[in-house]
């Protein structure tokens, strides 16, 4: 006989809400159902009610952690519909912005993963070093989190020569720590016991379920938008796409940590190759009727914006496909066959990024049946 264990929408393991209905037989997970939409903000619709210049700021607010890559993907699509190219210097600024974001996002995730397996010391160390990348975002772009260095037709701010030595020193510090963390994560007994062979996503499933980013690359899928559909200055920079074969949580840890080293290398090359010159071209007020797709490799994987313009200063339709959304179908094969105790780390291994509110699930203890209370019922209870 199976039981349903409801987890979430609010839960101690994750900072953001999603509701899982985990079907268990004893300790073993035999089925998973997922409920999303607790903080669907209607941004796609809101973007078509705003001008392109306004939309840029709204797109950066789809996700706090990935703001640079969201505004970059939006800009990439909008620049294609308008048929304009940004200056060379801006292309390199965009790369530096995006890679600093990847470093801070991966370290943030690594910290959360360490926290999920109860390794608090490592969590503190990861987050201590994440501060270095946040300081660099503040130094170069004026904000620790909301750096968003991209602007329609170029970059929002220029990178000053005087800040570069500090950036280079910080990258060296980060490189040293991350190399140490890779050694720790591949040799420490606690980490291996909790992560190795846990939450495996097979390559076949990753391909079929269209997984993206580190989740797919940890399962042997060689897929990175920076190489496959290059944007900004990625086509002029050499880097490796990190792929691991095992598909377990440990592989996801290793992929992300090794990607940080690649990001450091990318930033160094971008600093060296960055030409002098203008950082912005004029963006037209009205955009002729057209359609285009802009993709970027966000820290969590392929991010896609589809923009359709209609001759005015507002888009007709904007479609956003975020990487976590693409990775949810993969959560099922990763959880099924595992145990309840593995749920937090396996769910966290996708690095899910989503947002919040609403209802309550009532589970009848005797029959195991459940139903969800509506907002109206909750309102009546409150009176």
């Amino acid at each position, binding site marked *: 006989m199976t039981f349903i264990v409801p987890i979430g929408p609010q839960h101690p393991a994750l900072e953001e809400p999603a509701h899982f209905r985990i079907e268990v037989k004893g300790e073993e997970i035999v089925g998973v159902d997922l409920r999303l939409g607790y903080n669907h903000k209607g941004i796609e619709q809101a973007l078509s009610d705003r001008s392109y210049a306004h939309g840029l700021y709204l797109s950066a607010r789809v996700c706090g952690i990935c703001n640079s890559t969201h505004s970059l993907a939006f800009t990439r699509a909008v620049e*294609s519909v308008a048929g304009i190219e940004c200056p060379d210097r801006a292309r390199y600024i965009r790369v530096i912005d995006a890679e600093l974001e990847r470093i801070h996002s991966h370290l943030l995730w690594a910290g959360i993963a360490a926290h999920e397996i109860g390794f608090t010391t490592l969590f503190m160390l990861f987050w201590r070093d994440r501060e270095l990348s946040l300081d660099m975002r503040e130094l170069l772009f004026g904000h620790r989190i909301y750096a968003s260095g991209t602007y329609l037709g170029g970059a929002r701010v220029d990178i000053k020569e005087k800040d570069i030595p500090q950036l280079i020193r910080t990258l060296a510090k980060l490189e040293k720590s991350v190399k140490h963390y890779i050694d720790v994560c591949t040799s420490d007994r606690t980490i291996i016991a909790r992560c190795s062979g846990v939450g495996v996503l097979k390559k076949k499933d990753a391909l079929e379920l269209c997984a993206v980013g580190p989740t797919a690359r940890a399962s042997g899928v060689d897929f990175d938008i920076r190489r496959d*559909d290059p944007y900004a200055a990625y086509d002029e920079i050499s880097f490796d796409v990190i792929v691991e074969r095992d598909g377990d949580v440990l592989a996801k840890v290793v992929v992300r940590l090794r990607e940080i080293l690649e990001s450091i290398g990318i930033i160094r090359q971008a600093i060296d190759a960055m030409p002098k010159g203008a950082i912005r071209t004029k963006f037209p007020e009205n955009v002729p009727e057209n359609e285009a*797709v802009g993709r970027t490799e966000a820290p969590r994987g392929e991010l896609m914006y589809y923009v359709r313009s209609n001759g005015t200063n507002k888009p007709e*339709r904007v479609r956003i496909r975020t990487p976590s959304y693409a990775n949810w*179908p993969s959560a099922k094969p990763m959880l099924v066959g595992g145990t309840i105790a593995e749920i937090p780390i396996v769910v966290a291994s996708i690095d899910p990024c989503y947002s919040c509110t609403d*209802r309550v699930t009532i589970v009848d203890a005797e029959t195991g049946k459940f139903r969800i209370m509506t907002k109206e019922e909750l309102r009546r209870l409150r009176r």
Partner: protein
Amino acid sequence: MNVDEVARLIKKYADDVKIVGARHVFAVTDKERYIEALTALRDNDLKHLTTITGVDRGDIVDVIYHIHCGESLLNLKLSIPKTALEIETVTDIFPGAILYERELMEMLGVQVKGHPDPRRLFLSDDWPAGKFPLRKEAKK
């Protein structure tokens, strides 16, 4: 697959094949051929469906399948009239389409026939039936 190879492959199943920039292909197909087209893509080892986009264009709804083709991206468009808003599921070809089709159903009211799990995805349970937030008429 590069853009020229993709354009050659899709020509049989689509009209108005356009190559945009170095990596993107746009093509327009129809209800008779789109399942064949997607099956042919899958059989050529193009297994990554990036997403499905629905666009309300007044009397018609455009459904666009974005397929990652290695070095390029194919955007395959299918226009369906609002009077018969019905398409076949593609989850048997691309299992990863499962959530995108659910979103298409609840946001634009496109009926996806044969979908294995046609529940709502993002909208709340007490959202009125027959009201689709991304339709033009929903703005009023």
